[in-house]
């Protein structure tokens, strides 16, 4: 098949009508022929811009050239030199604003589908049983990693690859952080993809101790003093949900997106086999416009609900990825933009019966350049519903910072750390990801985990 160099090879997806009723992955990915055809579109730039757009600096042209030659194993090893989670990143990175956003092909035509190619390589390598290459010699130094989300897994993977003895401590019963509790099955399959990717990190020698809540089960100070860890990386994320503090928020049927998604994703409550209950709303309002809001909305839809996304700004300002918004629309999610809840209405038994909203309009841009929404007086209206899911963002859990001596935090309760190497105010303690930045993206957390691994190596090498 002749390839039109200006256009990307389309990727196969489940039909919107069908997928709206199941939890199987929406995007089916490339097959061998499609991937190799798409790979021919890469110009193998001598000064590749795409690499600059990748927070973990994967050698993109090199892996694509290997793929073009049909050498998946070499392509995989090239990627895994930089990324511990390629099957995840190929699926959930906002490539349009990262690698693909910088691709020169994108100037005149469509950028090379770097994310889909990365995914193809990682998926194929997994099917072929190819593992990442581990350390050749051991350094005999112990490093503790707090949290097994993208930041922690990346940091642990990088440190293990250069020979450190790494243990990850995870509070939940399953490793992966937001990859297992936050991002739904239909975007990121848990058993088929996330578990296998974590197995790969373990195959590098990383140990994972689950059911350990740092700050409660053991403190960082005690890990360093009593258990022989010479450095610690904190990648505990930003998992504390926000509520609006409006009347009716305690009604039955009001959930944080974290609760709703944790029940569905981590506890598999979407499946009738699970013993963890979840509400199956008939008509539900999801408040917020980020990726988490899209995930919660599409999950509620699959549980059989009519879903309204209520967001206080306009379509242009939606913080979610374009692809996610598109997918949500195709599946039939209704967007009620430029409006905001002011009260949740309850019936006589305490259950949600509606959401009272007010219309908004965008005012002048503020210092950050964002036009802030202002209420239109007298424009209140009601949306009838039996559930409301709050997806207003999250902030870091103060559990670790409040139980670690000498760890500086800022007024948003984020840990203060150097961007270049993750060093915190406490010697030997490094941090990165959402615990430092507040809620951001998977790949930025991975970038921070990577920088901290380098910082920890430099610190321990000079010690």
């Amino acid at each position, binding site marked *: 098949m002749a390839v039109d160099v200006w256009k990307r090879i389309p990727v196969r997806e489940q039909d919107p009508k069908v997928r709206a009723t199941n939890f199987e992955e929406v995007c089916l990915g490339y097959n061998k022929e499609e991937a190799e055809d798409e790979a021919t579109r890469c110009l193998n730039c001598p000064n590749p811009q795409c690499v600059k757009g990748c927070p973990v600096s994967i050698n993109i042209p090199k892996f694509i050239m290997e793929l073009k030659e049909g050498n998946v194993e070499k392509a995989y090893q090239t990627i895994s030199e930089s990324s511990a989670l390629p099957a995840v990143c190929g699926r959930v990175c906002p490539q349009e604003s990262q690698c693909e956003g910088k691709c020169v092909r994108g100037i005149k035509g469509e950028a090379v589908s770097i994310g889909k190619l990365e995914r193809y390589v990682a998926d194929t390598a997994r099917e072929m049983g190819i593992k990442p290459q581990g350390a050749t010699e051991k350094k005999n130094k112990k490093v503790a990693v707090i949290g097994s989300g993208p930041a922690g897994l990346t940091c642990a993977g990088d440190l293990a690859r250069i020979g450190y003895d790494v243990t990850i401590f995870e509070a939940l*019963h399953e490793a992966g952080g937001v990859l297992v509790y936050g991002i739904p099955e239909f975007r990121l399959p848990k058993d088929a993809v996330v578990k296998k990717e974590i197995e790969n990190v373990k195959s590098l020698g990383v140990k994972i101790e689950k059911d350990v809540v740092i700050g*409660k089960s053991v403190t960082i100070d005690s890990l360093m003093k009593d258990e022989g860890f010479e450095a610690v990386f904190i990648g505990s994320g930003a998992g504390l949900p926000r509520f609006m503090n409006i009347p009716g928020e*305690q009604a039955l049927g009001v959930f944080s997106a974290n609760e709703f998604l944790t029940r569905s994703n981590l506890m598999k409550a979407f499946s009738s086999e699970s013993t963890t209950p979840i*509400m199956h709303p008939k008509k539900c309002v999801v408040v917020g416009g980020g990726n988490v809001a899209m995930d919660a909305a599409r999950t509620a839809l699959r549980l059989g609900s009519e879903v309204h996304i209520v967001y206080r700004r306009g379509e242009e300002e939606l913080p979610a990825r374009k692809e996610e918004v598109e997918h949500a629309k195709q599946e039939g999610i209704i967007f009620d933009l430029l409006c905001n809840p002011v009260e949740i209405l309850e019936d006589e038994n*305490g259950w949600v019966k509606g959401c009272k909203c007010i219309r908004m309009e965008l005012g002048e841009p503020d210092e950050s350049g964002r036009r802030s929404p202002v209420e239109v007086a007298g424009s209140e209206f009601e949306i009838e519903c039996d559930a409301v899911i709050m997806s207003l963002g999250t902030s870091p859990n103060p559990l670790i910072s409040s139980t670690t001596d000498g760890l500086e935090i800022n007024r948003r309760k984020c840990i203060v750390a150097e961007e270049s190497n993750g060093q915190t105010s406490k010697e030997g303690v490094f941090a990165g990801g959402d615990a430092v930045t507040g809620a951001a993206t998977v790949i930025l957390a991975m970038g921070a985990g990577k920088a901290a691994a380098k910082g920890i190596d430099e610190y321990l090498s000079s010690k």
Partner: protein
Amino acid sequence: MFKILEANELAANIHQLIVEAPRVAGTCLPGQFLIVRAEEDGERIPLTICDYDREKGTVELVVQALGAESRKICRKKAGDTLADVVGPLGNASDLCSEDIEELKKKKIVFIAGGVGTAPVYPQAKWLKEQGVDCDVIIGAKNKDLVILEDRFKSVCNLYVTTDDGSYGRSGMVTKCLQDLYDEGKRYDHCVAIGPMIMMKFVCKLTKELEIPTVVSMNTIMVDGTGMCGACRLTVDGQVKFACVDGPEFDGHKVDFDQAMMRMKLYATEEGRLALKEQEGDTHHGGCGNCD
């Protein structure tokens, strides 16, 4: 995996397990709780700590078989394992951070209802170890449901009351407290742990009697680490998460009616699952109680 060293039935449907969980045993304090999953595919449920042994690295749980998951836990035998035991979670009892000499001056009463008796034990025991005396009222439906009596006797002045009068005093815990008050007992501090309805009525009474009262809120929980807000409740007009801000709160400031209402959230789902669990292979739907 967490190994079960001992498993005993204390009363009908109330089981005691001693579990190897060295990290929990190493740091837990009275007032804290655990999240437990029986099996790999199970639900996370909050359970209280009844006792712990730092040397042996063990914690003791007392579980009442109510829902699908607690039923599974209660079926466990010595030598079996629990898939997950997470903790200790929540804050330790405020008593643990108070000045011991000040504590010794206080007249403290604990009021325990049903399986809430278990989490009262480590608090009374801890006080005893510090040389602080306390009174404990245990309330149970009937004689057969009174648990841990002998162990309490060794750490406190114990009053047992049964709803049907089949053992000890007769009537609810609130009647027992009122009777003790009428007999001339005065208290400076009350801790009530049990069903929400019991804690609500204890608080109503202690407010009249002007006894500051702490309650331990047993709300619905998922993660138990503050990331979901399933356990949220209103205390003094503020939204709190029981798992990280509590579980103990000033009982005179808790909105009990709202907290009790929120317990209904999954009532039907749980009932459906419990039925499925009970009936096992004989369950085939069509009864109208499940789908």
